[in-house]
């Protein structure tokens, strides 16, 4: 698998590390991992860095994950880059909202590395 540049957006630094570890356990060759503590930070990073994969929490202070996703799409910041939402919210309505906002994948917390692999690898293969 080619080297991947990932952006992980979560207000919890612990969750960012757990997501990174799960990506590595899923077999991804991570060349670089950018971390952002909010949607606003994530947008700033996307203006400066190129990435191949974005994983974002939804419930975050200041700018939540759905608004972050809408802003990415509205400003065409990461064209063709798959976005996967990782969140405690699990209802069909939440999934629908995420998909409408432009997400390609949805992972519910708590999660296993195997679930991350199942959701993320097909998106990278298709990108």
């Amino acid at each position, binding site marked *: 698998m080619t080297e991947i540049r990932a952006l992980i957006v979560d*207000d*919890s*630094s*612990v*969750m960012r*590390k*757990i997501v990174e*570890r799960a990506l590595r356990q899923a077999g991804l060759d991570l060349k670089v991992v950018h971390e952002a503590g909010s949607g606003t930070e994530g947008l700033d990073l996307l203006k400066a860095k190129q990435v191949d994969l974005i994983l974002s929490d939804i*419930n*975050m*202070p200041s700018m*939540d994950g*759905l608004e972050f996703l809408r802003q990415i799409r509205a400003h065409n910041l990461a064209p063709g880059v798959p976005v996967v939402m990782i*969140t*405690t*919210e*699990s*209802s*069909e*309505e*939440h999934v629908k*909202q995420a998909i409408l906002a432009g997400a390609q994948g949805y992972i*519910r*917390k*708590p*999660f*296993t590395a195997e679930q991350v692999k199942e959701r993320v690898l097909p998106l990278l293969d298709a990108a």
Partner: protein
Amino acid sequence: MLLNGVRNAAIARKQGGGINGMEQTMAVSLRESVQLVSDPRNLDASVEEVFQLMLGVTCGRDSGPMRKEQESVTAVVGFGGLLSGACVFRSGSSTAIRIAALMTGMEFDEMDDTVKDAIGEIGNMLAGAWKGKVPDLAANCGLSVPAVITGRDYNLHVQAPEFQLHHTYRFGDSSFEVTIVCDGLQ
């Protein structure tokens, strides 16, 4: 005071954002499914799921009280929408450090910001898993971001909740408490 703040944040998040805003919230009622919402097995299953998947440990109910420690940590995640209230996680500092170590694969000597962050996330996942057990609740109840309190000799007091679940759990020789406080149900 604290619980009110966290709850208000969850309500504001739910109203502001939304997942279909208040329209859907107003159309659904949990009043008739209060037994399902207050079923203690949902809380047990949520705790087992979160600890198994995120820490790799088997966790079960403990009939005794939580082991007392001088310093403790509490994570509060507010509910807003169809149900207002909070999910409260509480443990001693050594249990909190053990949880953070299992979650991150790191070692900690004290209850630093990373440990507090990990405990906040545990509270967040417990709240999300618990409300996810009831479909109407999953779709129509928002969560606040976690508030984490540390200190010694403090008590958490809630005035006359509609219902409350309060369980002690154990993994290995570590124990902790999880409380679901519901003070309003639409």
